[in-house]
């Protein structure tokens, strides 16, 4: 149920974002979704790719600092109020969110997918499913993205 996400440290200097993107592109690794969290000083680039281990090895060999984190992919009804319902369920389940961002591909009219990093992912999986929240697996995500 958990999605493997790569995160990279980027200094806030011109060209820093280009480096990992070019490396992955040259290696034929498709970025399925990404998010960039920024502060004044630095940024954290979060990526979901199909071959997480190969991508990580590649980026580390180029001298980058890479983390592998597990995030949850939550399917959210693609209509107004859909997100609010899901978040309300999070609340009832007592699940705390570190960050979230949308997955780039969605099934129009059916559901959008959001990636969440949670404080206690294992407990959260159980608690959320009990509250009727639908979680997507890596396979499903990759299929939707045509990866």
């Amino acid at each position, binding site marked *: 149920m958990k999605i493997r996400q790569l995160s990279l440290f980027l200094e806030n200097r011109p060209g820093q974002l280009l480096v990992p993107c070019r490396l992955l592109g040259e290696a034929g690794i498709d970025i399925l979704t990404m998010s960039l969290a920024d502060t004044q000083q630095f940024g954290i680039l*979060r990526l979901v790719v199909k071959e997480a281990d190969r991508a990580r090895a590649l980026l580390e060999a180029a001298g980058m600092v890479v*983390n592998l984190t597990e995030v949850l992919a939550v399917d959210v009804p693609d209509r107004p109020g859909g997100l609010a319902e899901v978040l309300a369920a999070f609340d009832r389940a007592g699940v705390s969110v*570190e960050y979230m961002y949308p997955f780039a591909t969605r099934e129009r009219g059916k559901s959008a997918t959001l990636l969440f990093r949670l404080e206690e992912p294992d407990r959260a999986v159980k608690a959320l499913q009990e509250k009727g929240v639908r979680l997507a697996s890596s396979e499903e995500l990759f299929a939707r993205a045509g990866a």
Partner: protein
Amino acid sequence: MKDWNDAPGGFHPASAPDFLPRRELGRLQLGRLQAVVARAFERVPLVRARMEQRGLEPRHLESLRDLARLPFTVKTDLRDTYPFGLFASPMEEIVRLHASSGTTGKPIVVAYTEEDLRVWTSVMVRTFAACGLHRGDVVQNAYGYGLFTGGLGAHYGAEALGATVIPISGGNTERQLMVLKDFNVTAICCTPSYMVHLCERAKEAGVGFGRLKVGVFGAEPWSESMRAHIEREAGIRAHDIYGLSEIIGPGVGIECHRQDGLHLFEDHFYPEVIDPESGEALQDGAEGELVLTTLSKQAMPMIRYRTRDITALVPEPCACGRTLRRIRRIGRRSDDMFIIRGVNVFPSQIEAALLQVEGTLPHYQIVLTREKGLDEIEVQVEVTPDVFSDVVGALEALRRALESAIDHVLGLRVKVTLVAPRTLARSEGKAKRVQDRRGV
């Protein structure tokens, strides 16, 4: 003939010992040296042990040249004997303690008996007299008051001189400028970089320096071009003062009105210059590390203390007529210590702080810059896989923890910047940890 009578401020009687004929000075020095070595041998275990190791006793000191046979004292000796291990007087006789930063965060403690304070005051009076100051001058003392020897050292000296002393200490630039004008200040004591800052702010505010004519600047190295800048901007004569807490505080040396090298009060502090690698004593004129021996201190006599400052003794006599030898202005050190805002900093202190927060030592670089006369220090730290967190808050917390740890060790606010790995220069041998872009 020497021009001391034409010196600004004229001749001050307190300066008389500055003009002692060399032969008499030599006799005075030898007598005092023999006494201080005997005292240290008797009362300071470290000195005794080292001398005995070489088969030396105080009686072996028959001429000033014999000093070169005695063992050195180094900064780590003060750290290793913290707090009072080098004292030669019982605590009841010690009436003052001061402290300054050591290499690892534990301060270096120095002590004074009543007589030591009298000597300290006397060399400070001679210091101010050499700058052309006397009773009637108004002295703004912007050196920090407290454990730092600068504040109280300058204070006691200026007061004993008979000047009107304003113990304003450091900081609060607006107030400094206001007092400078309103109190008719004629002389100021502070770090040269702070003076540059005062000049900037005065210019911005469109205010002048009133009756200011002299500045006594020290506690950090500063260039001739900085001196020219200060003299031009403030319309004053800017004197370089030299001192160190381990020896006495300020008052070891001062530029006379010729401003061409600093006269050392060698009737109290005997100088040598050595080759920093071999420890061999060098002739006057050769550049090397300054070594000082206190000739009259009771509470904490220092025998052949290695200052780590690089300079040379000037062989020629000064046109002012003083027989006290001069040293060249000090530009650099033989170790990696640097000075920022008048505070001594060793990269090892910053390393200790980084190590404490991260558990390992990351690659780091210290970058020093100067904005409008104020020194800024930035510590760039490479992010390692161990500390890299996926959560922004955690990285921010790391940054703040590093800043806090460094602040705790140095007493200075620094800016920590996280940088990508492998972006800081690597080097073989001793890494160049400090990039000093201040153009001092």
